[in-house]
């Protein structure tokens, strides 16, 4: 869309951004909130493409469920963020680590190629407004309603 910094939008590109999001949204089959849910949705609906925002965790789940899937970073790049957590040596509940199946940040993931573009998350200009807009789009409001004050 020719926007140089997607994290800091000025006032004028908003209608275009909302329309674009609604257009994208209208072509989506469904949305998920949990990795397990995403794997089930992927398999039940016979989906071809899924935005895997849980990353390697979902890849692991889908492969465990027998899906023939690959993991790729789109040309435009993928949003990336780093969540850190540590498990102490004395921890008793090691099930937590196994359950989450999170990617290890010490070693390079095999799915990443050196040419892949990762866009690191940045603070946005107005978090509350962006959330409100997205919730409206997600609820199925049409453009006029989404952009209403």
């Amino acid at each position, binding site marked *: 869309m020719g926007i140089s910094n997607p994290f800091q939008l000025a006032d004028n590109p908003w209608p275009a951004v909302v329309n674009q999001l609604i257009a994208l949204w209208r072509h989506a*089959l469904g949305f998920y*909130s949990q990795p*397990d849910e995403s794997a089930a949705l992927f398999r039940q*609906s016979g989906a071809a493409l899924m935005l895997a925002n849980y990353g390697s965790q979902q890849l692991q789940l889908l492969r465990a469920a027998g899906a023939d899937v690959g993991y790729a970073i789109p040309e435009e790049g993928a949003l990336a963020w780093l969540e850190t957590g540590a498990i102490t040596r004395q921890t008793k509940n090691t099930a937590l680590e196994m359950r989450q199946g999170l990617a290890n940040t010490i070693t390079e993931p095999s799915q990443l190629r050196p040419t892949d573009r990762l866009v690191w998350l940045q603070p946005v200009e107005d978090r509350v407004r962006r959330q409100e807009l997205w919730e409206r789009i*997600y609820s*199925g409001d*049409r453009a006029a*309603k989404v952009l209403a004050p």
Partner: protein
Amino acid sequence: MRWGLAARLGSVLALVSLLMAGMTGLYAYQVARELLVHAAKDELMTATQVVARRVSDIRQEASRDLQLLARYPASLALLQGPPANQAAQATQLATLFSLLMRDHPAYFQMRLISASNYGLERVRVDRDGDTLLRVQGDDLQEKSHYPYVSSTLKLASGSTYLSRIVINHERGAHAGLGQPTAQMAAPVTNTQGQALGVIVINVDLKGAFARLTADLPPEFQLYLANQEGDFLIHPDSSKTFGFDNGQRVLIQHEFPPTQALVDTQVSQLVLEADAGVHAGAPMVAAFIAQKVMVASSESKLILGLAQPRSSVLNRSHALGMTILQIAGGLALTGFALALLLARWVTRPLNIMSTAVARFTPEQLIAGLPVHRQDELGQLARSFDHMQKQIRQQFTELQSNRQELEHLARHDALTGLPNRRLFMERLENALQRAKRTQSALAVMFIDMDHFKSINDAWGHDAGDAALQWVAQQLLANTRKTDTVARLGGDEFVVLLESPVQREQIDSVAQKLLDAMREPWFYDGHLCSIGLSMGISMYPENGDTADALLSSADSAMYSIKSASRNNFGFAPEG
């Protein structure tokens, strides 16, 4: 303190009765308590099944409403008919929705959604507080990406879809916004079987369950979890829909045995939770995994009811008190019976012991319980038998002793007192005579020619002669006088007062005369004569020996002089 048999027996029996009552009470309490807990668990499971049945009923009812609406001509007409009539049809449907929602407080929202226009809502009625609100125009939203639309559109006519139970984040949902919601939907199909839209009912999960469990006892707690175990309903609402904010609060973590339900190993279970968060107040809980029979993203729901174990056990406390009272009563009765029994056993024993203590050979024991038919009667009869034997032996012993005593003091041949008895009597007589200052006399008598009788006719003749002499002496003296045989052919006579010289003379003469009576031995006439020496008290001495020896000397004087005569000891 001395413990008598009664006290000991009584206390042992009382202890035994106390122990028995206590043990029986304890055992009965434990068994009854277990039965009660078991019954309570059964009741809890039944209550859970009832709630599950009601949930199923609600679902079926919603299904029926959905099917009715899906087949309602205005629904299809609105989706495929000419736009001219659509406003009237929409109003008609909205009215119908409102009527149904008024009847069903658990319905948050009812909608007709078209398959076209990205799932645009065509008719929508929301609950907003106490009122029902028809949403129209720009407020209608596109819902094609929601599974309750996309999945339901794929279903055959007459099917029902149940969504996952989540927090409803759809903006503008009024009362339902932010509330736990399940969407139920049915496709509206045309005659070719093509789904043109869906009818959707949003069910208020919290409200529905609150009404379901309103008539359950207040201490009952309701749990609902989805197929993965995420809590949907929990007494602590902060534990519900953890996945909605990126957490997992799972039933199998709080109640570990429910893992089997999540893994579909069992379909229902009863458990006692007393660890973790329930350590302080242990719970008894029943869980049922209910399969979702309609097309759904939820394959099953886990429904549970829990109740504090204390409320289950409260009933057993009342039971415990009753059992305690019964056991206490039994123990007291046992105690009293033990005392009575101890008394009953020891009373005859005490009677016997008192009776036996009074036992003397002279007096037989009376009052022994010999007529009893038990062991005590036997003991009493043994005692009775024993005392009779003792008495008989004692009597025999007594007569033997008397006999021995007689033998020791009498002459066996003649039956007369012997020297020992004579000396005693002489001593006694002397004492009396000294005290009363009276006189007494001692006659020493020797048979004349005794040896020749022995020699002529043998010892038997001698013995017979001695016996005859003894008889004659006895016959011719007073009863108060003592005739004794000193040994061999020597006799002695003690004459007690009143004794005067003339009387003694006549007695002596009488004795000599008595010998003159004819006496035959074996056809032979035997002549027997006596030589008598007489001493007097106090003239011839004041001791027995002195008197006897004086008489003896006097007798010898006669024997050597004339025989068959008597003479007095010389005075001085």
